[in-house]
């Protein structure tokens, strides 16, 4: 038995919406199988991973907190992926955004600096991420170096920079030698939305980024240029759109949004710099971007869905003693399913019995 792909005459609009859903269900079934192979009950796992977080108000806040960086980064990545450019170093841009923004928080620590600190931190965060994202873009446009490998290598470098700073010059002198900075002043802390809430203003930034992106992609020349560069690079060239400028622009945008996610997380959630400030948001955001089919609203939904796997993973670790690595494995399976399900949109899939070709 084998299957064959036959191109459809036109893309199936129903499949376009259905494909990610099908992919998600398939990924869940595979994950259930893995859990069953580990000797646990898939039903109990489903209960802990999905039902429980959704039925508990505290978990729903947590869901928004985790979905925020995912949505911000994934929205940025969608610019790159639409133009068929592969920025896979968002994790590094996130870290550098947090480092540059965090620098200001540490510099103004204990001083009477006013309300300008927080906005300046956010700007520095965006700037840091954008500049760091521009490194692979510049190497690509100027020298033709493959952006996939350079952007990824820079992730390791960024993590080492952060590690050096919090263990060395930026370590809290009164922190009992723990590798972490001082806790940010209130002036350098991103406020939460309402009292006793854990959801911070980063969530607002994420929603804004989604709305602006929807406008840019649907209503502006830049959005058109992006789509054309990705779908028909030759046509884009004949139309006079500079591929180099597009590359630089999308890397700056996605780096900037990743940097904003980084500084928002550090100043709104963690409250200090420490060696690890992300459970892999930058990589998971790639899954989010594709699960949302690179569509801004789709990404918003996908971010919430994938954030669920983070929270579910944490409670499954505590309640079922299922290791956290399971969450990562699931995210890998999910991305593979999402990409494979794309075939449903542009191809008809037929199961052919052996020897039954034609």
């Amino acid at each position, binding site marked *: 038995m084998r*299957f*064959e*792909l*036959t*191109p459809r005459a036109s893309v199936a609009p129903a499949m376009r919406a259905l494909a990610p859903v099908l992919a998600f269900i398939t990924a869940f079934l595979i994950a259930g199988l893995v859990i069953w192979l*580990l000797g646990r009950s898939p039903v109990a796992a489903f209960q802990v991973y999905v039902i429980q977080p959704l039925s508990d108000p505290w978990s729903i806040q947590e869901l928004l907190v985790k979905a925020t960086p995912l949505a911000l980064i994934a929205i940025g990545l969608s610019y790159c992926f639409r133009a068929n450019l*592969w920025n*896979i170093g968002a994790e590094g841009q996130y870290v550098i955004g947090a480092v540059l923004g965090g620098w200001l928080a540490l510099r103004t620590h204990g001083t009477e600096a006013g309300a300008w600190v927080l906005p300046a931190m956010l700007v520095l965060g965006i700037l840091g991420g954008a500049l760091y994202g521009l490194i692979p873009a510049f*190497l690509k446009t100027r*020298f*033709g*170096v*493959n952006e*996939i*490998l*350079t952007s*990824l*290598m*820079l992730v*390791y*470098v960024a993590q*080492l*920079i952060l*590690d*050096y700073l919090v*263990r*060395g010059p930026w370590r809290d002198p009164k922190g009992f030698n723990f590798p972490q900075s001082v806790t940010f002043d209130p002036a350098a802390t991103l406020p939460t939305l309402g009292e006793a809430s854990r959801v911070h203003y980063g969530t607002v930034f994420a929603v804004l980024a989604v709305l602006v992106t929807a406008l840019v992609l649907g209503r502006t020349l830049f959005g058109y240029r992006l789509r054309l560069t990705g779908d028909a690079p030759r046509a884009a060239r004949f139309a006079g759109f500079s591929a180099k400028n597009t590359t630089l622009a999308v890397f700056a945008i996605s780096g900037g949004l990743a940097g904003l996610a980084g500084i928002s997380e550090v100043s709104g959630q963690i409250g200090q710099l420490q060696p690890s400030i992300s459970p892999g948001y930058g*990589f*998971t955001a*790639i*899954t989010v971007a*594709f699960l949302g089919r690179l569509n801004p609203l789709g990404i918003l939904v996908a971010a919430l869905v994938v954030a669920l796997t983070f929270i579910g993973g944490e409670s499954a670790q505590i309640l079922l003693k299922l*290791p*956290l*690595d*399971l*969450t*990562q*494995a*699931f*995210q*890998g*399976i*999910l*991305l*593979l399913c999402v*990409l*494979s*399900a*794309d*075939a449903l949109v542009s*191809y008809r899939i037929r199961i052919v019995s052996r020897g039954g*070709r*034609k």
Partner: protein
Amino acid sequence: MTTFEAILLTIVTASTPLLIAALGELVTERSGVLNLGVEGMMAMGAACSFAAAVTFDSTILGVGAGMLAGMAMAVIFALAVLGFAANQVGSGLALTILGLGLSGLIGAPFVGARRNPVEPLSVPVLSDIPIVGRLFFEQDLFVYVSFLLTVGVALYLGRSRAGLTLRSIGENHVSAHGLGLPVLRVRLLAILFGGACAGLAGAYLSLVYTRFWSPGMTAGRGWIALALVVFAAWRPGWVLVGAYIFGAATVLQLHAQAAQFGVPSQLLSAVPYLATILALLLLSLRHGRAIGAPGSLGAPFVPDR
């Protein structure tokens, strides 16, 4: 043995996994498939080989398990990119995420276990040559295999009919298909070979290089292997050269950390990654664009019936 000799010896051990993994990826890419999942396949190779070696107390079984794990991952990748014509860059990335996660699940019960060193095999006569003899002819089996693999891949690609078929499929899959060449079958085999090599490289890491397993122990070596293929302009001989340059950089960096020159250790740890970027940059400076890349690299192929 002098310190100098000891350093040279560790360079060989640091370079071997890079060489093996890069050779596998080279064959895959020559067939026109870009598999960015090397890191994930390698991580699975390291975890499964270590688990099997400890459970059955056998290095050979461990190596077999590592290669099988790499190939199992490769099958998943092939199903997505060949079966469903899925995007290769994304699928490879997904494979890496999956491999790092799964390897964590498999390896977790074996944290803290240790394996005995693998006995080196000395080649008679040749191992008596000063320096070079000890360095290259009194090594473990993996090192010899890596050299044989380099020669084998070079001969296969350059001198055999099957190699020519594989290269033509990688250069232009539409023409190759028109000539009646089995594009998808050859690509499947090439992906499987890449998986087996990545698994073997992973097995080397956990069974010989460290002799224990820890989460994330591949530490980006799979990505460096990918960069080596580009650096080598898709030629096996240059992969060998590149792997040894990178191995040397890694080892010297470790010795510099031990010597404590007053340079932060994190800066030295960043050397392999920065060196990769630098190598890719220098290559592009010399040749303009990435030369030697197979024409159909990364493009999905759906045969018309």
